[in-house]
């Protein structure tokens, strides 16, 4: 459109603006889908609140109060307004605002998936790089097989087997839950809830015995999720790195007599960082949602377990509120990776 190429900063801003616009649209779509689900669900919200024995007048009054008699577009408008203002409705089970409940549950998921992603990156990236520099070697084959096994493992079964072996037989790690029950009872008195993340809160309170206990509980679920994320990250790193090592600048660097280690870890890896950001963000987002089954196995009070528990008793506001929050985190992570991608890759600016 413009005859003179606009400066990079301006182009960056317009690109970011476009991204934000499409994100807003996606967010709107997310709400449309949850709204439709909430409307077609067979659980009648009025009966859910009033119970089976309400009189006709009570039902009519509740319908009017909930706005169920308004036209659909108007209901959607109110829904949109509420969600944007942080009102995700009230849980039928506990009668607490869903947003507040999600705020209590989400940090546990965040803690678990963050730890898993960190382990996954720390092992996955070097493994992928080493595999790419020795394609076909034993190391390459083993990494590939290890990754394939990770991909093929039903995560809930892996969790059970992990508990069976490391908790039941060897006693190396703590069992389900975030703490042993003895510590669990003391937790609320001794540790002020700052972040709701147990490792951080206990460390801030200086409760090191409790912290060690929390570590022994988080190691197994985090390790299992880390295997999944490592499988994906190492595979992608390998393929990006293979691509990079065939480039001419690598040959140039070698011809100049640069040590091979520097060629690989500085020149090659630096250029694979750009697409790797997207991969890591994707796997992080996947873990946030993939934690649903792991949380069920490990009795981990996170968002996935919150949603499934609510689902089993038909608490739809909680299910949909949780879904919206997870969806938003998902969208947000995609946006961050998109922006980081543009910042890291000069060609994309």
């Amino acid at each position, binding site marked *: 459109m413009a005859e003179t190429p606009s400066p990079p900063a301006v182009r960056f801003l317009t690109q970011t603006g476009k991204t934000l616009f499409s994100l807003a649209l996606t967010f709107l779509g997310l709400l449309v889908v949850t709204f439709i689900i909430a409307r077609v669900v067979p659980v009648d919200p009025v009966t859910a609140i009033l119970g089976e024995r309400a009189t006709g007048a009570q039902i009519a009054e509740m319908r009017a109060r909930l706005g169920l008699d308004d036209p659909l577009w108007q209901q959607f408008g109110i829904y949109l307004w509420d969600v944007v203002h942080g009102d995700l409705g009230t849980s039928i089970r506990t009668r607490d605002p869903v947003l507040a409940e999600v705020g209590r549950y989400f940090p546990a998921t965040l803690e678990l998936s963050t730890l898993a992603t960190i382990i996954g990156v720390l092992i996955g990236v070097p493994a992928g790089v080493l595999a790419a520099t020795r394609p076909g070697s034993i190391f390459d084959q083993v990494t590939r097989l290890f990754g394939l096994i990770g991909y093929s493992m039903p995560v809930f079964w892996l969790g059970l087997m992990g508990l069976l072996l490391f908790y039941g037989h060897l006693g190396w790690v703590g069992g389900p839950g975030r703490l042993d029950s003895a510590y669990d009872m003391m937790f609320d008195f001794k540790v002020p809830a700052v972040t709701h993340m147990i490792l951080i809160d206990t460390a801030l309170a200086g409760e090191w015995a409790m912290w060690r206990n929390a570590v022994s509980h988080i190691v197994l679920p985090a390790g299992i999720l880390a295997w999944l994320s490592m499988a994906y990250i190492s595979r992608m790193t390998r393929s990006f790195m293979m691509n990079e090592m065939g480039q001419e600048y690598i040959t140039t660097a070698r011809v100049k007599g640069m040590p091979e280690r520097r060629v690989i870890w500085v020149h090659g890896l630096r250029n694979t960082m750009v697409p790797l950001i997207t991969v890591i963000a994707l796997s992080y*987002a996947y873990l946030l949602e993939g934690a649903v089954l792991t949380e069920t196995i490990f009795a981990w009070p996170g968002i996935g377990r919150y949603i499934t528990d609510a689902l089993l008793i038909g608490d739809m506001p909680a299910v949909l509120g949780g879904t919206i929050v997870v969806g938003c985190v*998902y969208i947000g992570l*995609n946006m961050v990776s998109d922006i980081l991608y543009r910042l890291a890759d000069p060609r994309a600016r």
Partner: protein
Amino acid sequence: MTLTEWLLDPNPKSRAQSRAGQAWLQWLRFRRNPLAMLGLFITVALVLLALFAPWLAPYDPTAQELANRLQPPLTTGHLMGTDDFGRDILSRVLWGSRTTLYIVGLVIVTAPVAGLIIGTVAGYFGGWVDAVLMRITDIFLAFPKLILALALVAVLGKGMENAVLAIALTSWPPYARVARAETLTVRNSDYIAATLLQGASSARIIWGHIMPMCLPSVIIRVTLDMAGIILTAAGLGFLGLGVQPPDAEWGVMISAGRKFLFEQWWVATMPGLAIFTVSLGFNLMGDGLRDVLDPKGAR
């Protein structure tokens, strides 16, 4: 002329001969990959076991024998032991393969087709059609898959058919993306223009000239996705939202074995091994197939 000579004839007499020759060459390349062959073997074995489950299973999968409950593996008559109702686990695993195959089959004949149609239409027409369809695709991609499937099952009710529907509804977007990308690369080709000049309708061009070009990439994705479908279906069953007991399904069986994991480990372990083996098989086969069929790898 032997069959091999006919297949490898550099001057094929018909289109069918050239196609068969191509397929033969691809098979030769696939055969060289031992891991891919292992995957193929597992898949074929799954299909055969599922087909012949009624004859192979030593017991009725739902027959209870309470006197014989929770027998460990390798007990006489019960190779994999029995569960808490005294049902033979081997028989249940064998019958479970039918459920698994049925779910995977239903999902892979629906989701990829829907994605293929949406992607090719969006890519061929472009403009606002493309914008609208791709926006919808993005919205579905933005949803965490398992959680959307959970919410859908909550709305539709528990059960296998609804689990299939929920998995299909959450797995079409990647196919639409792939199909659209392929469509964009062929849309402006001369052969499309030539067909257009002959007066072919849009539907005919999409159906007869664009979709076949998208098929290889979509098929690769399908084989790679099959493992994921199994895992999701088993996950839904495990959470009690998919297949309902007493039907034999691997996820449900694991969930039932969870109660006495530490005392009777085999009840949860055996069906999990089955899921793992089959999903590994699909992954290995998909990997091998991609190496053979991927246009980027071949050229």
